[in-house]
């Protein structure tokens, strides 16, 4: 068998780069022709000189290999209109216009697909019991994970806030993180810049705009790279994060935090970014305007959804988590 190894991913999130390779020995060919569907584009090619390949419509022709026996490639994909798509690609080793080896592959590309179903005009909240009726229906019809952010529109009547115990928790948490990072900077001087970035990320949670997400992604890549190579440093960071929470006096109400852990997970691969985002309710109806944003696990932003105004009232004065106004996932009888 002249082909020693071949690889192309079987599934991936739309927008992810797809690596691929072929390793061979004793194989005669004068070019490698790669025929690909239009949703795949060549991003990088390894072991091929700059002028050793040509790009044609939905095809790449490799005429020269630097060191015989290996071709490495990286393909880019993009977010598609369809929530799932199966793309095909074929590597053909050609000698004297005849295909001597044919390597077909296909990849299943998917993404999250957040859809809002029923939107009530009016919602009534039983604040003490935390009961809400009717609810706004939110579903993820796609196969990808979605991190969902629920925000109130600035300048409108009801505004998102955090309950007092969370405010107290954060105050103490920020103080602890600040002093822990200062201590770590003295120990791990070589990672001072990274620690400064980590401090910024922890103390100023990122927004869901493209610029912030880009900064965040760059930070995560750098952070993972350092954690991978320095286990001591990795353990010190994890310990710091855990200690900053466990030593917090507000964390005494552990059950509340565990409870919110479950509340932050919706069904259908939806994660709620801030289950502690609350709005006030009273007997007097007030207008709530919500904006729903989401990102996938590559930090790619989905199209934001603005909901029409909803009147919120309660049986008594209190507050309710915004995420509780939603029914997460399709109803049982839905497809």
């Amino acid at each position, binding site marked *: 068998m002249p082909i020693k*190894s071949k*690889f192309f*991913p*079987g*599934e991936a*999130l739309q927008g992810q780069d*797809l*690596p691929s*390779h072929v390793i061979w020995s004793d194989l005669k060919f004068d070019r490698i022709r790669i025929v690909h569907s239009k949703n795949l584009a060549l991003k990088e090619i*390894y*072991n091929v000189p700059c002028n050793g390949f040509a790009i044609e419509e939905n095809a790449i022709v490799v005429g020269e290999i*630097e*060191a015989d026996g*290996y071709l*490495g490639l990286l393909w880019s994909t993009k977010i598609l209109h369809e929530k799932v798509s199966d793309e095909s690609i074929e590597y053909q080793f050609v000698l004297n216009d005849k295909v001597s080896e044919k390597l077909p592959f296909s990849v299943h590309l*998917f993404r999250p697909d957040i859809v809002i179903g029923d939107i009530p005009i009016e919602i009534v909240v039983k604040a*003490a019991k*935390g009961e809400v009726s009717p609810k706004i229906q939110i579903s993820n019809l796609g*196969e990808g*994970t979605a*991190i969902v952010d629920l925000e109130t529109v600035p300048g409108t009547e009801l505004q998102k806030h*955090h309950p007092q*115990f*969370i405010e107290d*928790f*954060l105050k103490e*948490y920020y103080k602890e993180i600040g002093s822990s990072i200062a201590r770590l900077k003295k120990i791990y001087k070589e990672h001072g810049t990274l620690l400064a970035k980590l401090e910024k*990320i*922890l103390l100023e949670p*990122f927004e869901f705009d493209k610029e912030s997400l880009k900064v*965040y992604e760059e930070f*995560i890549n750098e952070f*993972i*790279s350092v954690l*991978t*190579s320095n286990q001591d440093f*990795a353990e010190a*960071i*994890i310990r710091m*994060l855990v200690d900053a*929470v*466990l030593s917090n006096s507000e964390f*005494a*109400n552990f*059950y509340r*935090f*565990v*409870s*919110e*852990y*479950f509340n*932050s*997970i919706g*069904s259908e691969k939806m*994660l709620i*970014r*801030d289950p*502690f985002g609350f709005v006030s309710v009273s007997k007097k109806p007030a207008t709530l305007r919500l904006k729903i944003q989401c990102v*996938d*696990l590559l930090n790619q932003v989905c199209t934001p959804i603005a909901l029409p105004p909803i009147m919120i009232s309660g049986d008594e004065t209190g507050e309710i988590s915004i995420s509780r106004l939603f029914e997460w996932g399709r109803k049982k009888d839905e497809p």
Partner: protein
Amino acid sequence: MSLEAISKIFKVTDKIDKIMLESKAFDIRSKEFQLKSLEETMEYSMVVLPKEDLNHSQKISFRDIDLRRLTIISSPGFVEAKESVSRIEEGLAKGFIIDPRKLDQNADEFLFRFEIQTAIEPYMKDLVRRDHQIDSTGDETNTYWLHAQLKEVRPFKDALRKMNLLDIPFIVNVGIYQDVKMKFPTRRQKELEIIAKWARELDRERKRRLDFEHISLKRIRHREKDITQLLRDLQALFKPEIFKSFVEVRDRFYYSYCFAGADFYDEIPFKTYPKWMSVLSRTDLSLERQASEGKLIYKRKSFQEAIEEAITRK
């Protein structure tokens, strides 16, 4: 990008070559190079032939290279020539000195192995393209593909007989949140909420109502496991020594370690249970095996069963 790493590597190896050649004692026959991620070392080896009568050779000094170790093996016999290598410790100047006169005069050839202490990750980053599946689908198992490939081959193939990049690290965040949520019964979530509310409630009447609600809930299922014990047993599943049994790394990759993953997506950093487990796996690349593929399998069904057991087992 990879050119930077290549020039850095050759800067070190050229320096060693230069010292060896200037000594005029040896002929370099072949060179091998290794980057070892786990040991954080760069290893440069060469097979050399004695050029002249080693009894008349000068001492060879290796300074200004961050050498951790220098080993010489003579052949035939494969005996380590410990007595011919000595360490220099003169103030800040560190290094090694070789005394060729103490080498086996009857040896046909020698293997010189230079171990250089350095941060390996920047080299790996430049030389290797690493990719893995970010999001996975599947009910019983979630499979994440892993892939590593060399960005450059030719410069190394031209200069070296062998090159190995060993234990190249990969971190994959395995999503476990849906399984924890799915297997944690709704009524126990309700119980958590009641206890949480009860702890913060200052109004006596409301507190009494919550008390009643909790007791009613417990009365229906009085044999159920205590919630505090349940939460503790659940926590144990995320310990690396336990969680590792729910992942399997296959093909040309191997499992190295796992830990509860950080979650920066959360606006409020409430750290109770992880939503992700970070799994560290590793692979090797060489000039003969320029790319490597593997699979990380998360055994969802087994993990769900373990959660169920942690929730119900007394």
